[in-house]
């Protein structure tokens, strides 16, 4: 029942175009309206509408190539949409990009960090770029390095970091200025369980303090545990959206105890098939 992109899993309020309120305190933290991105013949993102409320931890799910990273790139101002608009904290990302960027922290899919700076230098640089005072940069850097267990490697060049260490230092840089909105593209990829736990705690803390997190991941268990609301994108279309409870309720015809993974697999149309290798029998 979920494979149809127009299925009832998309909540009514999101089928309608999201409204950008003039009241900055009550308006959603992130609004995407009719977002479209076309690459040649392929429509990577197709009329995507969504709104993320302030303080929400929004999980953005989808199979490989569904359009998650493209959407995030358009939201943070790195990729121009073919059409449509994005607002972050009531600021139009494409009309006032500097102001929008000052509100957000971004952990992109491909970590294009300054590899020839040490971890500590990179944090200092990022702090200055966000306009954080020097004293606060020093204090926050040390705290982040300690929390993320990078103290021993803080003076190593980033080029010599492992994938997990790069993720952690990029995350540290993204939250250095205490952003209002945090975009995280696959933040747990390559992260060890201990660091993963620390990051989860940091993210949880941030949402408790009012930071909005827009989070894409393949790790269902993490999304299930952290996210207050989930959107599922498939072939560029937002095919399901709501809290986990809402998604389960809408799936009640099939299984009330369905996990997010079950819901996800149903929504993106992955059928139950035998996955045994014939030559292993």
């Amino acid at each position, binding site marked *: 029942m979920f494979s149809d992109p127009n299925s009832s899993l998309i909540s009514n309020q999101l089928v309608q175009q999201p409204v950008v309120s003039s009241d900055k305190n009550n308006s959603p933290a992130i609004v995407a309206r009719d977002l479209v991105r076309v690459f040649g013949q392929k429509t990577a993102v197709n009329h995507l509408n969504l709104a993320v409320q302030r303080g929400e931890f929004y999980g953005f799910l989808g199979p490989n190539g569904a359009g998650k990273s493209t959407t995030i790139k358009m939201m*943070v*101002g*790195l*990729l*121009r949409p073919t059409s449509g608009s994005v607002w972050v904290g009531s600021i139009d990302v494409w009309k*006032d*990009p*500097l*102001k929008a*960027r*000052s*509100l957000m922290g*971004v952990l*992109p899919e*491909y970590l*294009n*960090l*300054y*590899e*020839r*700076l*040490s971890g*500590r*230098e990179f944090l*200092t*640089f*990022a702090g*200055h*770029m*966000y*306009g*954080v*005072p*020097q*004293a*606060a940069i*020093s*204090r926050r*850097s*040390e*705290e982040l390095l300690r929390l993320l267990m990078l103290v021993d490697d*803080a*003076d*190593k*060049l980033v*080029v*010599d970091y492992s994938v997990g260490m790069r993720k952690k230092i990029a995350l540290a840089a993204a939250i250095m*200025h*205490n*952003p209002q909105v945090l975009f995280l593209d696959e933040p747990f990829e390559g992260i060890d369980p201990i660091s993963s736990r620390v990051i989860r705690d940091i993210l949880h803390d941030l949402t408790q303090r009012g930071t909005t997190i827009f989070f894409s991941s393949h790790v269902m268990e993490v999304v299930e545990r952290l996210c207050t609301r989930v959107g599922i994108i498939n072939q560029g279309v937002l095919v399901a959206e709501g809290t986990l409870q809402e998604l389960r309720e809408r799936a009640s015809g099939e299984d009330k105890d369905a996990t997010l993974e079950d819901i996800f697999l149903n929504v993106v149309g992955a059928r139950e098939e035998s996955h045994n290798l014939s030559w292993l029998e």
Partner: protein
Amino acid sequence: MAMVIHRDKLRWLFWLRWKLFLRGFTRDRGRIIATIFMIVFGLPFYSGIAIGTFFAYRFLPPPANTEVLFLVLTGVYLFWLVLPLLEFTVNEGLDVSKLILFPLTRPELMVSLLFSTLLDIPMFGLILVFIAVVVGWAISVPVTLLTILAVLICYVQVVGMSQLVLALLMRTLQSRRFRDLSIILIAVFSSSCYIFQQVVFRGIGARNIVANLQDGGFSSYLQWLPPGMSARAIQQAVLGNWGASVVWLGASLVASILVLYLWQLVLERSLRTPEVGGAIRTRRHKAPGGAEAVSVPTSQPAGESVWQRIGSTQTLAITIKEWKYFWRDPQLKALLFQSVIWIGVLIIGPLFNSRGSSSSWGVLTFTAPLAVFFSIFILSYNTLGLERQSLTTLFLFPVEPRRILLGKNLSVAALGIVELLLLVLIGAFLSHAWSFVLPVLTLGLAGIAVVLGCGNFSSVFLPQRMRQMQRGFQATGSSSGSAGCVRSLMSMAMMLVTVVVLVPVGLTLFLPLLWNMQWVWVFAIPAALLYGILFYQVLTRLVASRMLARVPEILEVTTRE
């Protein structure tokens, strides 16, 4: 590992190497263009060496012709010792650690490496050089046969020795530090050929080389090296001393077997994990106590002056980051070294060409700004492209474009000013032309401002991708990398435009000199300085206002893989 070679595996190893070899030329448009250039310039180069040495063997009087043979075989040998170090990342097949996942025997790995070595462009050059040896010494059938045998042994030595070096240094070759070092060394080596040529051939060596060729001075030493043994065997055969010839050939054969034995011994030892490391010394910051309120900046104040902008922490942080990158990033360091070498050439040129007369040093004073302009043009005309992938990170920060450009410009301007000061002061000191120092320095500053302004324009409107550099012959210090022909043409056009815009500054210096009216400088030089500053300001303001809107397009060009 058992000493077994499976024919089927060998076939597939050869298939793999052949595929890698072909795709090395056709993987992308840049490679195809590089291949065409290689055919157009590389083939005549190798052919030229082969033909030149052939004529030397045939027509130089003895012992000069055999001395050339000694030099050629030893040169080839030494070149191939270094070749794997240069080619390691370019020739993917040389990294045998990728095959260790599969159940291959040691001989199979060795054969795979041989395939990779044979299917390599410089190997074709080597074969041409060896053919020239055989044809050049084919004075009779027995001598020809012995020469073929000697060349074959020499060939095995060369390949075996290069593989031995590769196996010995495998761990180091896979390290990031070596990759960095080799990029710098290659760029510096290719740029310093002029200085090398001046020093070796003009300064110290040319006459000695000719004398040694005529006196047989090289062979007495080179004969003790494995390729020298092969050369001596050929020479003795030509003289009819067959006994001595066979002895030298036998010695060469033993050396080859020893090399092959050592290679297979070392190969297994080298197949280990690469080193990871690279801590650098940086100042540790103590965490200050107490919390501080943090104000997250929004957009920058509208009426900000240049001085406020220069003094901003963002601008300074970018400048400091740039300097760190110039030192730590091998590609940028190579560019920096090339620009310093360019300055070195300017100093060395007069020293050799005019025996260091004071008039030639006076020329240095006047040409110094031109050298500096060229030097900073290299570092500034694609200043956003030089960021490569990390430009994405820079654009995610809420930094006003003018601050980004200014931060980058300051780092390059500082380098330019240091170069300018050094050159002008050295020139003035040696030519005693102190009266020209102030005018040339002032006009140099004006020119730097013009070049940086033009650089900002081309960086934003004509950005280029700077490819992540590799070692090997395809590695260059070019800041445009695989930008493609159209963009290369555009950068050349930009250079021409920069030269045209610089003309008023140059005329300010030279016209009064030409007409012997130096008093005009009192008005002209401040006017030129004003021109430079205004040009920079206007162009940078224009460019910065468009930069934010062009972020996706700039990223599309500069960060595409």
